[in-house]
């Protein structure tokens, strides 16, 4: 591309933005609105995912060891359990330790006086890589010699999986819908610009301008509007996230939840916003101009 043409495209694209100031402002606003909704749902989905990950990691299966096994025999089962697919680690808990934990849970209540650790067996706390495979892993552990019973919180696991799936599906549908809405608005904004300039475009075609030459200023216009929209929405999203997360965290009802710090998602979010903004701008302008280039 010759240098003078490059600057011509940029100049024409920028001129067009200012010549149709209101529509440019409207399309940036629409992109910002759509990106903020998209971004908010993506951040919600990421946080739900992170929270579920944390809960998953704390959500273990209990494998109870045969009462008649000595401690050495019980400890020998550990490697067998860890060799099972989907088991990330298996922690041995002797009956004494388990009994102390149990009493701690109930603040050493006097109700349990007279009882001792003999009433409960040695056990393994088994942590999984993927809790959606919990039922199968439960069966596999039950088949290990020396394991008498496996207690798995299957209903809790199913709840987690369901929540994660619902949030993911809603996010994907919303992101797709909002992308299409942004595309439609952007395309129509540029279509209005092209409609106003249809005589100019016809003259350009008539004197022998190539379609590429005619198209570029509109693409530049779309790219600039898309980029402005994505940068503004990123900054707003940042502010909104800080405010919302701080309020939620300061609310004691949610104190058990840990939210992702914005710095951890900032770069991917900025990249995604820029990609969507630029994509909407480019595709929107190409859709808007195509009818005028058919002749």
């Amino acid at each position, binding site marked *: 591309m010759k240098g*003078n043409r490059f600057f*011509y495209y940029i100049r024409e694209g920028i001129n067009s933005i200012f010549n149709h100031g209101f529509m440019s402002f409207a399309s940036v606003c629409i992109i910002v609105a759509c990106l903020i909704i998209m971004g908010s749902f993506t951040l919600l989905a990421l946080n739900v995912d992170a929270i579920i990950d944390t809960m998953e990691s704390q959500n273990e299966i209990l494998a109870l060891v045969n009462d008649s096994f000595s401690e050495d025999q019980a400890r020998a089962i550990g490697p067998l359990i860890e060799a099972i697919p989907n088991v990330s680690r298996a922690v041995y808990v002797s009956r004494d330790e388990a009994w102390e934990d149990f009493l701690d849970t109930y603040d050493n209540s006097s109700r349990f006086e007279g009882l001792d650790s003999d009433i409960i067996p040695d056990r393994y706390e088994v942590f999984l890589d993927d809790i959606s495979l919990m039922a199968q892993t439960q069966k596999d552990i039950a088949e290990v010699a020396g394991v008498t019973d496996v207690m798995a919180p299957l209903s809790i696991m199913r709840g987690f999986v369901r929540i994660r799936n619902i949030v993911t599906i809603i996010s994907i549908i919303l992101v797709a819908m909002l992308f299409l809405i942004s595309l439609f608005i952007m395309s129509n904004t540029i279509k209005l610009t092209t409609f106003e300039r249809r005589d100019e475009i016809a*003259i350009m*075609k*008539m*004197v*022998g*301008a*190539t379609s590429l*030459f005619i198209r570029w200023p509109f693409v530049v216009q779309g790219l600039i509007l898309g980029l402005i929209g994505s940068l503004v929405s990123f900054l707003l999203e940042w502010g909104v996230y800080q405010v919302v997360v701080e309020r939620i965290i300061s609310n004691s009802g949610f104190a058990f939840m840990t939210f992702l710090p914005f710095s951890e998602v900032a770069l991917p979010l900025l990249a995604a916003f820029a990609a969507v903004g630029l994509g909407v701008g480019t595709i929107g302008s190409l859709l808007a101009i195509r009818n005028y280039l058919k002749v």
Partner: protein
Amino acid sequence: MVQFIDVFKSYENGTKALRGVSFKIQDGEFAFLVGPSGSGKTTIIKLLTGEIAPTDGKVLVNDYDLSNIRFSKMPYMRRTLGVVFQDYRLIEDKTVYENVAFAMRVIGASAKEIRRRVPYVLELVGLDTRSRRHPQELSGGEQQRVAIARALVNNPRLIIADEPTGNLDPARSLEIMMLLQKINELGTTVLVVTHEKELVESFSKRVIAIDGGKIISDGMGGYYNYER
């Protein structure tokens, strides 16, 4: 050079606009294409500018076969043409100079070439003193001169003027025709499409008459006889 070889054109609504049209215009010629409304004149212009393709037959324009041209080649074919319209089709927010320069800029001419060529063409059409005016500040005849300058600026081999005097009084019409004749004398082929009988008769040029989608006469001045 322009050549139509047994050209047929039917539109989707069933209208048969051209029915076996054949004619040839040599390089450097000046010709009128005349005929009543609906005779097929506009279809011939659209075929010449590549806006539509023939249903059958061959259309050759400046070494391009428009019956079989690739879409990507069309801009380069159009650079060999200059088209002048009845309604001028100038860009209102550009000055006379900018309107003419625009035609050069959009085909990628350098700023230096534009600065050299535009004043020359404006002088040729007698508008060198009006270059900073906007179209709405000019008379109809002057606006048509701007349109002719724009058509000329890329040094085309063929100028197609579609009813160039349709919006002008007789005196301004004659001026425009004299200008087109001058351009022809400088070596550019000129095809003027018109239905103004008096104007055609005042020039002793070739007249191609069309009616009902067929060429009904083709020859010097006296063959202008399409009226039924």
